[in-house]
């Protein structure tokens, strides 16, 4: 159960913020009305399918589409040759920058297939069955090439080379030869070598993780129509329809103004829907077929062809004094990027030590291309992987020092005024409170039995702000419509309605929220980086304040008093002018009814670029029991505490903590990409890619820490969506290691690995 003590301790009281109303889009979602990507149909619509490479790495010598085109019912076939060749260029899609040429080649292969599942051609036909049959008639001649998927193998000088144009960035001098190492990142402070040498206690470890998928349940889907005048319209589920618009325009080489994107409901993303796969192909097929084209991925395609996050190697050295003061940390990270540069190793470096105040450190990260699907963002990109290594090493250090793992983190924990390892000085953070609340939680004091273990870990995420638009309209009955440019992935419409209701002083039921298409609302960066409630919420609050100011002005006009003689309270304008003692308050409804006479429709749209998102800190504790004969792990208890600034809708904040914890438990115990000797994925389905099911988990207890509201946000909100997936990998691994008395360093902690570790311990 979530404990809300902290909110009671804060003086500020809100009418709506902090309550738990039913979300405005809820009924549509429990009745099956909500329309997701694959639910949309258009008159005259036809169906597309995509042909994908069976090879992990192959040169494409030729593609013969004639037989497919000759099949009755086939309306269009496209290959890489139907798309423009783009120059290498960084484009700011609103999230982590991506390279437009790489994105275009990832959408559909040109001269080489770089991973199994890489799209090589696509068809559109009058029925799904004909489209499927047509795929088998496309003849592609491949020259298979040696492939490499393991990150360290890919870094070797003699490794099969994916791209001849990659020369490692970030080195002292540009290398003479191309390689698979796209970039070196480095973050240094103090003299780590001297500090390690002088340390009274040292720990050292090598940790490894496998590629894992976001695992959203809704496969990618879109309907696209490209008319003869070059106007394209896309209906799709994504984390940002403005992102889809700009990326499609890039890949197709058309003007942004020629593409309109209407957002569908999105069935989960977790970062995986922050880029495009199907949309430009559907548009290209539609342009040729003169009909709207629907493309829907199978689950198999989602696993083989959309972005997982990196598998990685994390090497950690820590040095400390006997009293537990950490004096030195050395971290080296090697990340699979997939087929193109851009693994999250940069943010993994920046977050690796962010929870702690460490005077001397060196963090080095390597971004390495491999013959696997191009990685996409996944919830706090990179942070869970580096935290896995660092938080396990801290656990080992605590054991060596004979210290409680929470106390060790508390002694070295980040607090206001501490210079973060990634540069800036922290302010308004509540990491120490978060640790304290885990230490106080009853779960942390339940006695453990044989074969049981307890693990603790911490995690950090920056949270971001960014360009956002919110519009507020007053209907003539006085009810409100709020519009934003951000797809609602987890209940953000509830937060938007609540923040607007708070400003207007009206019941939240009087507020409707909508997410219009790219032509009907101002530009907004995508829904990601835990930015929506913070940044888009700011835009909605500012727009609401503008409308309230307008309402006060109109009331002043009606009363014939100065504007400063009008106050706004509980949804109505109040006249302060003693000379007008008889002036009855003017309600929102009353003012709306007179809008025509007082200046016309009442509305405001605010676009801003939100800055100063407050960082989030999470601390999790996990209890497990291990079956010593089978190595099977049961999660007994799980507690997630987090510095959330202030929870707008506590239920959905708790939901973020619980969902992040569950994904992290899956990552720790069972989830992994398994490739065969040819580099083909062996478990591209939910049967053998094992995400947690309901019976795998206990209730996930949450503690929302609200002692450090974000001063930049009108109601103190911080981003909450990403931090909760950072600690679980290490929290679970620390618990398992404690239960079996062996340090487990290679994820996932599947039963065979644990049984093998136990056998090795006996021997």
């Amino acid at each position, binding site marked *: 159960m979530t404990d809300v003590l902290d909110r009671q301790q804060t003086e500020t009281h809100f009418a709506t913020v902090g309550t738990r109303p039913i979300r405005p889009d809820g009924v549509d979602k429990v009745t099956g009305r909500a329309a997701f990507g694959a639910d949309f149909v258009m008159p005259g619509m036809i169906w597309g399918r995509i042909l994908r490479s069976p090879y992990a790495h192959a040169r494409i010598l030729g593609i013969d589409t004639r037989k497919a085109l000759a099949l009755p019912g086939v309306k269009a076939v496209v290959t890489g040759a139907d798309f423009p060749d783009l120059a290498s260029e960084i484009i700011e899609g609103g999230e982590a920058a991506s390279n437009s040429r790489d994105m275009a080649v990832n959408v559909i292969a040109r001269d080489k297939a770089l991973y199994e599942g890489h799209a090589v051609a696509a068809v559109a036909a009058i029925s799904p069955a004909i489209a499927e049959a047509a795929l088998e008639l496309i003849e592609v001649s491949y020259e298979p090439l040696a492939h490499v998927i393991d990150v360290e193998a890919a870094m070797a000088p003699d490794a099969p080379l994916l791209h001849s144009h990659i020369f490692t960035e970030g080195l002292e001098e540009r290398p003479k030869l191309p390689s698979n190492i796209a970039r070196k990142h480095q973050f240094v402070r103090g003299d780590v070598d001297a500090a390690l040498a002088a340390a009274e206690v040292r720990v050292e470890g090598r940790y490894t993780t496998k590629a894992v998928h976001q695992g959203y349940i809704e496969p990618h889907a879109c309907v696209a129509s490209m008319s003869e005048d070059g106007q394209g319209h896309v209906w799709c589920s994504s984390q940002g329809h403005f992102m889809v618009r700009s990326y499609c325009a890039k890949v197709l080489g058309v003007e942004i103004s020629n593409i309109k994107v209407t957002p569908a409901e999105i069935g989960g993303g977790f970062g995986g829907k922050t880029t495009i796969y199907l949309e430009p192909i559907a548009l290209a097929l539609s342009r040729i077929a003169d009909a709207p084209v629907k493309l829907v991925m199978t689950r198999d395609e989602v696993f083989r062809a959309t972005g997982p996050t990196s598998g990685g190697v994390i090497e950690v050295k820590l040095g400390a004094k006997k009293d537990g003061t950490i004096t030195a940390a050395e971290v080296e990270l090697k990340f699979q990027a997939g087929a193109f540069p851009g693994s999250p190793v940069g943010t993994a470096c920046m977050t690796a030590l962010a929870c702690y105040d460490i005077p001397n450190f060196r963090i080095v990260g390597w971004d390495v291309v491999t013959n696997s699907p191009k990685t996409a963002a996944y919830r706090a990109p990179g942070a869970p992987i580096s935290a896995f290594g660092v938080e396990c090493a801290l656990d080992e250090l605590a054991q060596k020092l004979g210290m409680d793992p929470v106390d060790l983190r508390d002694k070295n924990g980040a607090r206001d005024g501490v210079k973060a390892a990634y540069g800036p000085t922290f302010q308004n953070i509540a990491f120490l409170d978060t640790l304290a609340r885990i230490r106080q939680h009853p779960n942390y004091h339940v006695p453990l039995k044989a074969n049981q273990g307890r693990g603790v870990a911490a995690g950090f995420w920056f949270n971001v702000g960014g360009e956002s638009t919110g519009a507020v309209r007053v209907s003539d009955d006085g009810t409100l419509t709020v519009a934003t440019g951000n797809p609602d992935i987890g209940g953000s419409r509830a937060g938007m309605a609540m923040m607007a209701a708070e400003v207007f002083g009206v019941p939240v039921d009087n507020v409707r929220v909508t997410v219009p298409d790219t032509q009907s609302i101002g530009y907004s960066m995508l829904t990601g980086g835990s930015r929506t409630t913070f940044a888009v919420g700011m835009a909605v609050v500012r727009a609401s304040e503008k409308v309230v100011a307008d309402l006060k002005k109109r009331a002043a006009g009606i009363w014939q008093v100065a504007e400063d003689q009008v106050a706004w309270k509980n949804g109505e304008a109040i006249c302060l002018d003693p000379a007008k003692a008889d002036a009855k308050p003017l309600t929102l409804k009353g003012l709306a009814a007179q809008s025509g006479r007082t200046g016309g429709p009442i509305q405001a749209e605010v676009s801003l670029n939100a800055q100063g998102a407050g960082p989030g800190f999470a601390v999790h504790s996990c209890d497990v029991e291990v079956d010593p004969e*089978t190595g099977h792990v049961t999660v007994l208890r799980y507690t997630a505490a987090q510095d959330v600034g202030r929870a707008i809708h506590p239920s959905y904040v708790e939901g973020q903590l619980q969902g992040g914890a569950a994904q992290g438990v899956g990552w720790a115990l069972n989830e992994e990409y398994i490739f065969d000797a040819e580099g083909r994925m062996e478990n591209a389905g939910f049967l053998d890619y094992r995400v947690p099911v309901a019976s795998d988990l206990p209730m996930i207890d949450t503690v929302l820490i609200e002692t450090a509201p974000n001063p930049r946000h009108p109601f103190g909100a911080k981003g909450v969506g990403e931090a909760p997936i950072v600690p679980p990998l290490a929290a679970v691994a620390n618990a398992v290691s404690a239960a079996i008395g062996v340090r487990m360093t290679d994820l996932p902690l599947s039963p065979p690995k644990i049984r093998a570790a136990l056998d090795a311990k006996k021997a």
Partner: protein
Amino acid sequence: MAQFNYVAPSSVDEAISALASAPTARVLAGGTDLIVQMKAGRVRPATVVDVKRVPGAVGIQKAADGGYVIGAATSGAVLGEHATLPRDWPGVVEAANLIGSTQVQGRASLGGNLCNASPAADSVPGLIAARAVCVIVGPAGRREAPVETIQVSPGRTSLQPGEFVLEFRLPPRPKRASDAYLRLIPRTEMDIAVVGAGVSLALGDDGKIAEAHVSLGAVAPTSLLVGPAGAALVGGKLDEASLAALDAAARAACNPIDDKRGTIDYRTKIAGVLARRVATIAYARAEAR
């Protein structure tokens, strides 16, 4: 899915001729394996014969000898809800009820699970340990065969063209006899068995094990009836020595592969662990009857 003919015959003979009509014809019972394989293009039958309307294919009857006749296309959910079957053959029922989710239970059948011929089929070790017999119908008429003779290798069965399994026969269950099935999976549900073990045993009046049958799944190309493992239990009261002998016999019978679901070493060790645990459960159940 590739195109095919769908037929739902209402008699055994129609079903046989439909199956005989095309060499690639396949029987559809619950479809929880067949439809997945057809979607993936792994099988492309010209004809799909839905046998659920064939008399006898669905339902559970008590046989004259006190045993059971179970329609091969009867869903796992129906087995679990039967008035007496779960009491008399708890191992057979719990094995069938471990196949997939609640949703899959609504469709998946013993016949489909057996004839899909996966070495990891959960219900097969339970049936083999129970000494269940298949009633097979085909162009050559009706024949009976022990369950362990049906699977010949992964994906292949000993059924002849036009033949299909219509029913399973389970022997009558005396007092002080019971069975059990256990499997090891990485999660708690929804996985394919890494190892499965079924034990059926009967106690003599002296409380000693008079008869015992042990079957293992997912440790060889087909589910195994492990004679020496059963023999290790007979004559004892499940003391440490006989459990150790059972463990050793189970491991000795293993001929598994390394794959995405488990290693040779792991599967072999777990076969012994599960054999011991499942024998203990079956013994306790037998004593309680």
